[in-house]
């Protein structure tokens, strides 16, 4: 018996929609097995993980708070990934966006005018863009692999954050804790509802709409998809390779930067050595689970946010390690990638021996 893939002549529209759902189903099944193996009642554990957080208002609000940065970063990444640029350093761009956005509240904390907040958003975006410009520049100028450079910069960004909160930006009145001063109200993002949810979620929704419109209706979106699928045809259409590398990195860098700024300004309220539970990496999963489609990314972002809350909830309810969250996230991405194969291929089981296998032993 062996598995054989048969190429479909066109993309399967059904599978395009179904694949993430199947992947989620498989993840739940695999998760149940995992829970059972660890000696928990799988039904109980899955309930605590996936359902319980949705039963109270506090958790739902928390869900949206966490979904905000995930969606915002993932929408930016989708532009990058669609154009076949592998920016996997969104975590670093998020960090630098947070640092740049914190300049006003930390260095110029007396300035509390009405322009403070818009300036902070702008700084956040610029910070992310500056950090993303390094891999973009190196790729367009020298052909350097952007995967490795963007990732290396994540570590550098984290050391920079660590240096600042332990050194020059440390709160002088903070009893030597490695933290910045707590942001002034004028430097805190406007909140919605009970006070946890902040404007960052609105930024994410705006980004979703803008990118959805761009990708589906405009020449720029067309260009991104052509360059991603077949750069040679893109050149034939008169599109520029360099231009699209820069565009993808700038959009994803700006969005990640804004997300970082919104996180410190809206959720944390100060700079600390750790400001992200890996949003920049989880957003990669969100982007793929959402099929690089802004609307899909909204659902995927909510689901991945649920995996964070679910991890905490399962920890409280059953004493499970919250590390399980990351395992779920990893499994989900694996299943999504595997199921995406079904969009372009049919799977068949064939009973004969492989055709070209081991040919030479007998020669």
């Amino acid at each position, binding site marked *: 018996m062996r*598995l054989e*893939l*048969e*190429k479909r002549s066109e993309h399967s529209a059904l599978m395009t929609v179904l694949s993430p759902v199947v992947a989620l189903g498989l993840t739940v099944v695999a998760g149940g097995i995992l829970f059972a193996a660890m000696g928990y009642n799988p039904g109980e554990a899955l309930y605590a993980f996936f359902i319980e957080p949705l039963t109270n208002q506090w958790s739902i609000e928390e869900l949206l708070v966490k979904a905000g940065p995930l969606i915002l970063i993932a929408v930016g990444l989708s532009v990058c990934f669609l154009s076949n640029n*592998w920016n*996997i350093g969104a975590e670093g761009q998020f960090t630098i966006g947070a640092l740049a956005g914190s300049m006003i509240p930390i260095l110029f904390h007396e300035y509390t005018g009405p322009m403070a907040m818009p300036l902070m958003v702008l700084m956040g975006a610029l910070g992310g863009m500056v950090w993303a410009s*390094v891999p973009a520049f*190196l790729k367009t100028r*020298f*052909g*350097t*692999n952007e*995967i*490795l*450079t963007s*990732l*290396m*910069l994540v*570590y*550098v960004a984290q*050391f*920079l954050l*660590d*240096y600042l909160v*332990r*050194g020059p930006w440390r709160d002088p009145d903070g009893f030597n804790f490695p933290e910045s001063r707590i942001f002034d109200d004028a430097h805190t993002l406007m909140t919605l509802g009970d006070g946890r949810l902040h404007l960052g979620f609105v930024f994410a929704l705006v980004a979703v709409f803008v990118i959805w419109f761009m990708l589906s209706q405009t020449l720029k979106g067309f260009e991104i998809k052509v360059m991603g699928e077949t750069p040679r045809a893109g050149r034939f259409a008169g599109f520029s390779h360099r231009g699209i590398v820069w565009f993808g990195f700038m959009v994803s860098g700006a969005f990640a930067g804004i997300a970082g700024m919104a996180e410190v300004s809206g959720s944390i309220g100060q700079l600390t050595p750790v400001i992200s539970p890996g949003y920049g*990496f989880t957003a*990669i*999963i969100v982007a*793929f689970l959402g099929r690089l489609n802004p609307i899909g990314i909204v659902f995927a972002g909510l689901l991945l946010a649920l995996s964070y809350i679910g991890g905490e909830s399962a920890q409280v309810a059953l004493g499970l*390690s919250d*590390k*399980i*969250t*990351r*395992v*779920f*996230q*990893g*499994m989900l*991405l*694996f299943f999504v*990638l*595997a199921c*995406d*194969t079904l969009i372009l*291929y049919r799977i068949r089981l064939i009973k004969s021996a*492989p*055709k*070209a*296998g*081991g*040919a*030479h032993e007998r*020669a």
Partner: protein
Amino acid sequence: MSALEPILLTIITASTPLLLAAIGELITERSGVLNLGVEGMMIVGAVMGFAITAMSGSPYLGVVASMFAGMAMALLFGFLTLNLMTNQVATGLALTILGLGLSGMLGEAFIGQPGIKLPVLHIPGLSDIPFIGTVLLSQDILVYISLALVAAVYYFLFKTRAGLVIRAVGDNHTSAHALGYSVLKVRYLAVLFGGACSGLAGGYLSLVYTPQWVEGMTAGRGWIALALVVFASWRPLRLLVGAYLFGAVSVLQFHAQAAGIGLPSQLMSALPYLATIVVLVIISRNQAVTRANTPACLGRPFSPDR
């Protein structure tokens, strides 16, 4: 001499995990597969190595466990990219994310536990020779394995028929298939070898480098190993030089910190990552060399029907 010895010893210790992971990835990439999941395979190798050592008391069993853990991860990667023809870049990332998650969960019970260090293989007579003996011949088994692997991989790739087949598959999988070679089989073996080496590299971290389990202890070394393969333009001997150069940079950075150079420690810690970027830029500036050495099928999925 005596001041130099400890520095050289730490350079060897810092270089060995990079060398192990990179030599495995070199074979994987030579067969045309880009496995970006080195970091994930390494960290799972690290946690399994530590766990089995802690449970059995034998660091050698731990080494074997780390190797199989890396291979298990590689098998998963192989199934997706080779059988299901998924995107290799995305799947490699998935492998890293999954590996970091899995290791965190598996290792939770071992946090803070004292580890057992892989013993130095004392070679009677030889290990006592000043300098040469005390530095080069007083190492644990994994150091010797890593060096032997470089030589073996060099011989295998360029002097044996099987090595020729791997290079052929990486250069043109369609032709290799047409000649009757099983592209899938060759690539599976190469991916598994890469996984085994990455697992060993992880095991080295948790059994020698810092004999304990710390979450995320690979700290980007898997990614640096990937960069090293590019730096070495897919050649084993250059890889040896590259890995030791990098080991030296990261060690000197420690010593500079200890010596109290006025720079912030974080800047020094960021040095290996910055150095990686610089090295990648230098290498990619020389397009002619890179292009001529890159396996032509690297990262391209193979399906026999076309």
